[in-house]
């Protein structure tokens, strides 16, 4: 098996890029799991079994990262040795913060019952659209090597992704999940 610290893109045999072919990743993932899943080592000794659990876990981690746009973006930035854990307020920019505040106010202002479903759906479409734009910009910035721009786009994506998650939770609360 490939080294456990191997680059996720290399592991799946695809070029390192934000734009990925999800269909292809899925296929490669299934091929690799078919080889390295612990069930393939049911006969092996304890050490081999443990190694299989670790390899298979790593494969799952890699797949999970590559198929999620926000995780993929974060991963690409760390491959460029950028620290994404610690955020400097100045990196975010006033425009981003203002936009976030407006969107959040819109979400909080909705009524707490089912009548808000239409509004939630509209808000969801709006945020999804914005997120897609940021993803495209991120992809371009990375390809052109504009790393600090890409990092800013990443933070914007992170905000919007979190907001989208909150909109979904709001929907679920109103639908009685």
């Amino acid at each position, binding site marked *: 098996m490939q080294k456990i610290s191997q680059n996720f893109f290399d592991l799946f045999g695809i070029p390192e890029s934000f734009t990925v072919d999800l269909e292809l990743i899925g296929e490669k993932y*299934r091929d690799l799991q078919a080889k390295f899943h*612990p*069930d393939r080592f*049911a006969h092996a000794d304890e050490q081999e079994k443990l190694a299989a*659990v*670790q390899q298979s*876990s790593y494969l*799952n*981690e890699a797949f999970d990262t590559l198929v999620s746009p926000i995780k993929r973006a974060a991963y690409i930035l760390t491959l460029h040795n950028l620290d994404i854990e610690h955020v400097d307020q100045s990196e975010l920019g006033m425009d981003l913060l203002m936009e976030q505040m407006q969107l959040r106010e819109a979400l909080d202002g909705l009524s707490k019952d089912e009548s808000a479903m239409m509004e939630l759906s509209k808000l969801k479409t709006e945020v999804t659209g914005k997120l897609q734009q940021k993803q495209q910009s991120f992809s371009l910035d990375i390809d052109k090597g504009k790393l600090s721009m890409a990092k800013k786009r990443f933070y914007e994506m992170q905000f919007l992704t979190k907001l989208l998650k909150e909109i979904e939770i709001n929907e679920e609360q109103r639908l009685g*999940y």
Partner: protein
Amino acid sequence: MSLLQISEPGFESPVSTHRLAVGIDLGTTNSLVATGCGGRVEILPDLDGEYLLPSVVQYRKGSPPVVGEKAKAAAVADPENTVISVKRLLGKSATEIKNSDTVGRYRLDSSRDEKAPALLTANGSRDPVQVSADILKALIARAEDFLKGKLEGAVITVPAYFNDAQRQQTRDAARLAGLKVLRLLNEPTAAAVAYGLDSKDQGNVVVFDLGGGTFDVSLLSLKKGIFQVLATGGDTALGGDDFDNVLAEWLSLQVFGGKKLDLGEQSKLLHYANQIKHQLSDLESVELSYADWSGRLSHVQFSTLCEDLINRTIKTCRRVLRDASKSVGDIDNIVMVGGATRMPAIRAAVTQYFGKPPLTHIDPDRAVAIGAGVQAEILIGNKAANNFLLLDVNPLSLGIETMGELVEKIIPRNTTIPVARAQEFTTFKDGQTAMKLHVVQGERELVSDCRSLAHFELRGIPPMVAGAAKVRVTFQVDADGLLSVIAEECSTGQTAEIQVKPSYGLDADSIEQMLKLSHEHAHEDMELRALKEAQLEASQLMEAIDAAIEVDGGLLTKEEARVISSAITELKQALDKESSGRIHEQTEKLNKVSSEFAARRMDLHIGKGLRGESIDAVDQSNK
């Protein structure tokens, strides 16, 4: 006459390279065992031809546990000592058992720890793990009798929604029963395998699994032999039993006007309710008659009584679809599993929600065991895996307790397993050498709303100033859905020692102790069996010789008769001593001293026989 080997039609005798492995569906109400025979997977019947083993165990003083149909029959007459639905007790605290036990069926041993309850029976205190092990032992015996060999491993199914403690206890039960677990397999995944293997289907399948006591829904994506679970959800406290209870409560109101009933009466009423429920699966309405009361119940009335339960199942389906980001239109097939899905009301609700009728062509009681049997055949190496693979998920989020009793999620639910996630922790005080971690499972924000899994204590952290030591803790969930924790101090690379205290059930030492005891008992049991066999053999021989002397005593000289008679006396003395070895020895001796007598009798009788028949007849009989 040479002995004929008798085998069931459809089964081929195992070839030498074939390793014996089974799939076990350890159910709340019934259990099954399946194995691969000649390229197919079949459910193994008991000697009476029954496939379902009722998951009921009766404990009587000083005798081995009674498992299955006999115990089920005893449940009404002897409810105190008969354990039903033990699966519902796995991983539960005493209070939880009491709260869910509305009829007061379970008598708990008050001397036991709140988090590791045991049931009082006529044969002492029994832990739910032990009761489960007794059911497993009955299944192992069935399989080993049938396959004429020792099992090398088993795949045991568990509800997808089982938490870590429930899974761990299922594994412990297998260990106690002396069974090697190849894999714990989620029940809906197993059922999907049973349905998916024959077809080259691609697409999204929902498995709706309503068993006796648990409810699971899984959404799987099938692609080129790989079964990938996208999301799973359920309720480990919802099952066919609950429909019985609702009906029994209604009957109690009709018959006794809500008067409080004793345990015996409740058991009887519950048994009756269960029969009515089964009849309503085939009939529009059923005539009721209980004690001196009579009435009628229609299928529609019954559905109305159970409306809340039915709605709970559909709500879970919605949740699972949402978790997998799928809509009803994305679902290609719905598979029904578990005996309770025979209820027409359930089928109707599922058809309505998904907008298409579910698949029901495999017996809903058997699908899970068949899927487990397939997986067992592959894991033991009897069947080529090709591209076949099951990728499952963890059903509940795993998290740790942080400041303010809040939960920080480390591995969210529906993450494909196996999975490992690492988290870094630091020391809080100068020179701190130990750290405590509380791991919980569940979706809620507060620790008290989640299920406590275990307390981990990390020791041996090198003393440093506060915040300097960095402990990297890796949470690893294996393919069985079981958690283990590894901790390492980053600056020194030293592995921290971890002590695990499971929050529910017994710790490793208690299990070890139980295992030791069971081995001792197994030895006793074996000796007892050897003694019984030796006794039987000896008395059969003595009877035969006595009968022979009566007829042909004249063939013996006085001296020969004395030798035989003294050997019989010695054997009788050995029988009194109750040692199987000694009995064997004396039986052998008697055999030896009487062999000449037996030979003479043979000559005499064959001679007589031949003289009485024509040569032709003898020739014929030899052909």
